């Protein structure tokens, strides 16, 4: 290899490395606020929460492998959360048979408020309270409602912030439904 070629390669490598550093910086800053750790395609962090009504029943994500998990974070003060709940309940009734699990995670409110709220809405899906906000922290949830779709392989399929209508909920559940044998 002659000197000229060597020099061109040397320069090229330096420029490419520096360019990559800039691209990385810009990209990570742009995506920093939204998803600091959790991104679509990542393995969904495992967690365990106690069921609202049955103290012995623990919802552990890893136990749901092979099923799609529709993980919804909510609070009683959040109006869009309230609005989407009946639709979630309806669709859960349909997709439950097809291997989709719903878990509605309340953000550190009191058992009384949560039970009161769920009962007044007459919705039927598993609910759990995250008393230390640790699951919320693990999933980087800061705006409610937030829904994380987890596919049967345990990977994050989609992250949705904001209210969903019934049609969207149906299509989301469809997207994480395990394939029929």
């Amino acid at each position, binding site marked *: 290899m002659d000197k*000229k070629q060597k020099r061109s390669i040397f320069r090229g490598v330096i*420029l490419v490395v520096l360019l990559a550093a*800039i691209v990385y910086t810009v990209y990570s800053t742009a995506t920093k606020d939204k998803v600091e750790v959790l991104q679509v395609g990542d393995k969904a962090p495992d*967690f365990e929460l106690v069921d609202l009504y049955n103290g012995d029943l623990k919802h552990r994500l890893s136990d749901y492998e092979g099923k799609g998990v529709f993980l919804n974070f909510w609070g009683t*003060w959040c109006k869009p959360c309230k609005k989407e709940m009946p639709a979630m309940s309806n669709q859960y009734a349909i997709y439950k048979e097809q291997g989709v699990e719903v878990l509605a995670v309340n953000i550190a409110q*009191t058992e009384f408020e949560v039970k*009161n709220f769920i009962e007044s809405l007459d919705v039927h899906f598993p609910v759990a309270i995250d008393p230390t906000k640790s699951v919320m922290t693990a999933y980087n949830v800061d705006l409610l409602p937030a829904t994380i779709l987890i596919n049967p392989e345990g990977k994050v399929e989609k992250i949705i912030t904001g209210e969903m209508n019934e049609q969207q909920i149906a299509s989301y559940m469809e997207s994480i439904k395990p394939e029929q044998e």
Partner: protein
Amino acid sequence: MGKIICACGHENPEGTLLCEKCGQPLTEEGKKSKILNMRYDGIAIRSKTRNKSIVDKIWNFFSSVKVGVTLIIINLVAASIGTIFPQEFYVSVSTEEQKAAYYEETYGSLGKLYYELGLSNVYSSWWFQILVGMLAISIIVASIDRGLPLHRSLKNQRVKRHTSFMKRQRIVAEGPVTEGDPSKTLNLIEEKMKALKYKVRRDGNALLAERGRFARYGPYINHVGLIIFLFGVMLRLVPGFYVDESMWIREGETRAVPGMDGYFIENEDFILEMHDNEKTENQELQGVNVVAKNYQTDVKLYKQSEDAVPGQADNLELVEDYSIRVNHPLQHEGFSFYQMDFRLNELKTMKFELTKKETGESLGEVSIDLTNPQKEYVLNDQTKVELLGFYPDFSGFENGEPQTKTPDPNNPAFIFKMVTPEKPEGEVSFVAIQQTIEPNGDNTYKMEFQSVEMRDMSGLTVHKDSTIPILAIGGVIFMLGVAIGSYWNHRRVWVEQLEDGTIRLAAHTNKNWFSIKKDLNALSEFAHLPRYIDQGEEDKEADGEGKEKEGDSTL
């Protein structure tokens, strides 16, 4: 690539200004000038020699000093624009709409424009980062482009230089020795220059004395420091290197620590202490009543067992028990917890008395823990209070249903059902602060508010910055480079004794001509050398001013 062959027979790369071996000027310009431009010692600057492939073109763009200076100016302007109004980071509102409103309300239409142009978040904007990145590329490329050949040229310096090189230096001397034996002159020069801490090399009848060569590396060293610093700043974006989170935690609560996986913190007590002194004159003047002495949060830091997952809070292991005070953060594994903020007196427990309206007779007291309200509070066999609804931050009714604005007990409201021996089917009452509604007509009993228990809330900041050592190293290297480049200078003296015994001398320094003249005065006296002349001074007298600056400090 064309080569330039000097009269001395040395092959120089294209673009060379002064022959690498003997120093003879190779350009027409150089041959005509009275004093040579010694910048970069006349080496061929890499980027100026080839300009063919796309890689070379990009390389040459960034190696240009003009481009570098332009980038510095653009960066400075952009960075200073970011200081006109406060950045979003310092504005304590959360949503986008509130931010937009904040800038418009506080700073008028200029503020609105500022926000809309994205200048309120300049430092994390893509274009600002690209600008800084381009500056970094420019620094690196220009340093490689100039630094490496300069290093090579300084390392391979010849002792003997061409006459035209010698004659075109700013300080020159030529003539016979003023007294003594000319054959000893070179030895005398060597002796004196060594005493002046110069490194002396000899080659036949030529001599080169050199001092402070490392000063030439100052700018490159400070560039290295700067690049390390920028690299450190960039590392902050890599997950795990930099954490800056804030959290609110109430007394008695245990919360997962944001940014610190598997750790929980419990707030045991928040303490605010005031000085209980008499008001001083200054305090009177400033209208200050009391002065805080201490802000403190007593905390317990827990760690989950290794195999635990988020959500499990039963198997926590106590790591540290600490009182966080201002400037005394809790530190653990690189993380620091700072006392940042507090909120006093949030409702924790509310006490009511079930009383008969008419007589004021009390049937008992109900204490409601707002962090864990119960479905019913039994007073005796026939008397109980059922809680039908609890709204921690009551904000009004919607379709007849009470609403809560937030999960925090800022304005608690309750729906009670009072079961008494007199009214066994129960009476319903909606109770909020300063408001009672009895939906089913006039009740016989009421829940009379008695007292509250409060608790405080601490605002903590969780901070971790593993890039600090890198930033510190970068900063130290940078300052070292600046110091080396500023306080030391590279002085060279070339001497040649011609066959007839006369001495020809030339001297150069990259800055501080005064000091080299001082050295030369001492040398001339010691070795009886002919008087030197400063051709630069002559020029200055001739054209007035101007030349001095340019030649004053060469890289």
